[in-house]
């Protein structure tokens, strides 16, 4: 069975930045879980998010749509979404769609933090 897990924490050096680590499969079935979790964060006032994609093994078009929706919501509130270390497979999908030209992609948490601070 394909699983999907979300782990949320704050960045020690910038407590207003939330890091969401995604694990498993983000597809049409699991996208509701992802949306629920990000809805709660946004409702609580979060506008800066780092999505840690190291553990994400697959993303479907529904998942990509959810990332796009999240990014636009954060931008509307003056915030930003940064993607951290996607696996090669996920990177290939993002790149094919042209997402690498729209999203910030980072290799390290420090780099992501820099972008969110600027």
């Amino acid at each position: 069975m394909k699983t999907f897990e979300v782990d949320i924490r704050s960045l020690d050096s910038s407590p207003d930045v939330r890091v969401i680590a995604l694990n498993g499969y983000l597809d049409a079935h699991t996208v509701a879980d992802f949306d629920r979790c990000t809805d709660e964060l946004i409702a609580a006032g979060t506008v800066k998010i780092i999505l840690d994609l190291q553990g994400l093994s697959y993303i479907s078009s529904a998942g990509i749509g959810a990332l796009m929706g999240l990014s636009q919501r954060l931008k509307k509130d003056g915030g930003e979404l940064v993607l951290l270390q996607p696996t090669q497979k996920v990177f290939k999908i993002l790149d094919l769609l042209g997402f690498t030209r729209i999203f910030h992609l980072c290799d390290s948490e420090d780099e992501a933090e820099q972008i969110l601070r600027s």
Partner: protein
Amino acid sequence: MPILPLAPPQFWSVTTLLVVIVAAWIIISLLRARIRRLESAIAIDTQERESVLLFLHRMGEMATNQSDLEATLEFITEFIIDETGASAGAIYLHDPQSEVPELRARVVQGLFPPLRPTTGYVLTKRKYLHDKVKAERIGLGEGVVGHVAKEGEGLLILDARAERRLPTEAHELVPLESMMLMPLKIREEVIGVFAVVNKRTHGQVFTDKDMSLLRTLADQAAVTVKTVQIFEELTQQQRVESELRIASDFQRLMLPTQMPSVEGFEIAAYCKPALEMGGDYYDIIRIDESHLGLVIADVSGKGVPGALIMSMVRSALRAEAPRRLSPADVLRTINQRVYEDTRSNVFITMTYAILDERAQTLHFARAGHEPVIACPTGDPNPVLYTPDGIALGLTDGEIFDVMEELVIDLGETDLVVLYTDGVVEAMDEEGREYGQERFLDLLHRQCDRGPEGLIQDLLSDIGDFTHGIPQHDDITLLALRRRREAHVIEAPLRQGQTG
């Protein structure tokens, strides 16, 4: 003295010059008239295109607002009356309750007359008039509405007073001048009739241009009405369960029914919608006598909203394709439309290619879609083309507009294949993917197979891999090659290669 071809200047300047001036004046006037005609044709053409795109835009808004049938019909009627410059209009639909085929007006706007002979006294007050029109049951073949529903062809009535199929009472209630009727058709099925009467500007009558606009709008309206109709019937039933099935029915309706025959080329296509996710679409559009548009796309939104978006994209593409011979330009225009009309989490990947039959080339641009694969003649390795380009609906402006266009010389290519991700992501029972490698490997071995043969081989290879378990995503393929001499692909040779 030798005869000179021209008389000396001082001799012909007076007489001939006059003739030349008159001739030049005539030619210039003729050219001017021609330019004026062309300009007005272009202006009307642009106006029609703008109307259609505005209509799609509004329909997109309505689709996201989950409108009901009544609201949709009201909107369509108002829009069509406005755009055609009519003073009144009505939309007739087949009555699902009636046992024999009958049409009833569902929405009436403006001073619209009853179209059946009436015996009773009808008040001319608009509300009573509308009630009267709505109460009429019109049989198939009866009067002008029944005639259009039966024949499935539009009808332009330039002089309504001379039209025998209109009852005399109609003229007493509403002074009728001209009238247009158009079937609401999905493929060959007539679901209703749209009728407009009298130009708003007194003394004017409807023209062929108005008919053309009405036809285009009615085509789009038919798809929308049918979608909303089916969706509404389900509200009491298990909507969610059936939604995906309807969407996939619609998807099938939007696919071409047959491949156009193109001299000198072989083209084959295949689409297998999956119940769970479906959002694939392909189309083949004749642009002009030597250009053919080929499109393959995948809409991320599934279900009925996805189907409506697909229908919007299809209409926008069919409106734009004949106007531009640059695939990247077409995709840029479509993106502008899609970006404005869709919610932020819906996007479409698409590859649009233009086959130039004379030059034997394939120009293409890619909006976030899977690569285009080509098998070059004499080279065993298929080539993947992934020109720069972002999926439709994600962003607009400059970032999107950076879109690369590539060209393949079909004279030196054995086969070109367009496909959707459902092909490479087909899964076996353990969740392993069919994958690009196996796909390319098959192409490598089978590049001599024609488009149709290759698609068959590929499907059977995917079947072997997945052991026939149902797939979660659509599988769509479009393949083409330059037609070869029959002897090149003899059956024994083909068998030798596969075996």
